[in-house]
């Protein structure tokens, strides 16, 4: 099996899994209990908070544990919107290719009377700081731009965008779910006020994440109940999951430079190989890109059938085709970078890590080539293209 879908989720690391298991066996008390057995769990929780804060350059008091990236996105955006509304500021700036956890939250806020501006992400999948500067108005309360895109892997100029937001006095949130643990992220240097992260994207467990909120930013709680997380997130804490997230993040941060160099080399090998397939194109900027992200469109074929046949060859990947999204429209990310429907349906995302060998990269290239050729062999679109009845887009 060649797992090339790390943007969807990663395998939990051995040490993170061990952390979880031993806590479940030995330190299973409730951190809110006052006896020492409970307080031991509380210590574990606070140590994890410190470790996570240290990795992203935050203060432990600025870290709030959540059930994952989606919850952190929801809470960050809702909190900033509420703060804005109190001052009569109801305008939010974001981008067209955010994750649905952000976009759907923004849709709801629109229904509640907020105005949302979605910035264009251009053909290369990058928002320019100037766009943010131009879009900021007197009544803007929040700018939310993702650190790196989950489908095409493009890394945004976060530091420069954050600087503009600071200058203009507007809160800045970034969905850093795909970035944390993979590329350097530092909330101070990068001028970030609010940041979302998710453990299962960096070899931690699923269903755990965190929200960083800079000092003085009052969070609104999505879940009411007990006073956990300083009253901002009720519910008995997932101590094993949170501690495992800290273990995984420390590990990811420690090995990041080396791992990222190896991953990038494999990624570029994969891109070079896939470029050889006629009438194909890389999606998203080739340089400002996550170390493991490869995303291509192949003209004349549909993504789901490509994925199923790659699965038969032992390769796990994903696609932005309509048939994999459950709607009739292909991925909003591919449409946002200007891919028309015809080719957006034929997309393939391979998100790799450094555990693959060069031989395995070669096998992926060969397999994709074979499957694309096979599917084109009975595609009526491909026939029309080859017969000159239709013009090639790619």
């Amino acid at each position, binding site marked *: 099996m060649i797992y090339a879908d790390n943007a969807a989720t990663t395998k939990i690391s051995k040490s993170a899994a061990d952390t979880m298991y031993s806590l479940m066996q030995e330190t299973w008390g409730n951190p809110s209990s006052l006896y020492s057995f409970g307080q031991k769990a509380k210590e574990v929780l606070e140590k994890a908070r410190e470790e996570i804060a240290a990795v992203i350059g935050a203060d432990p008091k600025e870290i709030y544990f959540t059930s994952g990236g989606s919850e952190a996105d929801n809470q960050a955006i809702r909190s900033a919107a509420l703060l804005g509304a109190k001052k009569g500021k109801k305008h939010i700036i974001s981008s067209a290719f955010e994750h649905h956890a952000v976009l759907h939250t923004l849709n709801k806020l629109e229904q509640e009377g907020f105005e949302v501006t979605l910035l264009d992400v251009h053909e290369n999948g990058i928002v320019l700081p100037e766009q943010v500067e131009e879009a900021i108005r007197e009544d803007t309360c929040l700018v939310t731009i993702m650190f790196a895109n989950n489908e095409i892997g493009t890394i945004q100029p976060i530091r420069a965008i954050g600087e503009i937001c600071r200058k203009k006095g507007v809160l800045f949130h970034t969905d850093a779910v795909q970035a944390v643990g993979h590329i350097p992220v530092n909330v101070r240097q990068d001028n970030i006020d609010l940041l979302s992260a998710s453990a299962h994207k960096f070899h931690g467990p699923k269903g755990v994440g965190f929200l960083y909120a800079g000092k003085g930013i009052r969070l609104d709680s999505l879940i009411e109940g007990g006073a956990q997380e300083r009253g901002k997130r009720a519910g008995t804490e997932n101590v094993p999951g949170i501690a495992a997230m800290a273990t995984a993040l420390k590990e990811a941060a420690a090995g990041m430079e080396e791992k990222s160099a190896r991953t990038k080399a494999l990624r570029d090998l994969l891109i070079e190989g896939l470029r050889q397939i006629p009438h194909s194109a890389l999606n998203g900027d080739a340089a400002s890109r996550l170390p493991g992200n490869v995303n291509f469109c192949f003209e004349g*074929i*549909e993504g789901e*059938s490509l994925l199923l046949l790659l699965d038969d060859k032992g390769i796990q990947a994903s696609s932005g085709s*309509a*048939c*994999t999204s459950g709607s009739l429209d292909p991925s909003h990310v591919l449409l946002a970078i200007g891919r028309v*429907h015809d080719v957006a349906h034929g997309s393939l995302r391979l998100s790799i890590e450094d555990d693959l060998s060069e031989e395995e990269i070669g096998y992926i290239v060969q397999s994709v080539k074979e499957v694309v050729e096979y599917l084109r062999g*009975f595609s*009526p679109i491909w*026939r029309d293209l080859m017969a000159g009845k239709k013009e090639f887009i790619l």
Partner: protein
Amino acid sequence: MALYSEKVMDHFRNPRNVGVLEDANGIGEVGNAKCGDIMKMYLKIEDDIIQDVKFETFGCGSAIASSSMATELIKGKPVSEAMQLTNKAVAEALDGLPAHKIHCSVLAEEAIRSALEDYHKRMDS
């Protein structure tokens, strides 16, 4: 749980009657690239019997499987019987399709009907 039934995967992996019929006397194409599925059916009809049928499909696994199954269901059958083919019959023959994939079987029904209409048009002129 697998996404598709064994039957769907079998027809997807080994599509029956795939390709083009050079001497087709009924051709139908339905769907569009916008929604992600296009099916083209080629029929060779003689003495009111579907002697041969082939298809080409751009689409997902269930679109390819539905096309393949639809061709099997009408091959060797009288035209009048082929006209009665429903998407339900295609989906049932495939041991069912996921709810959001039913449109693929509808497309297969429409493709067959469109090819039969083309045949009738050619006969009339």
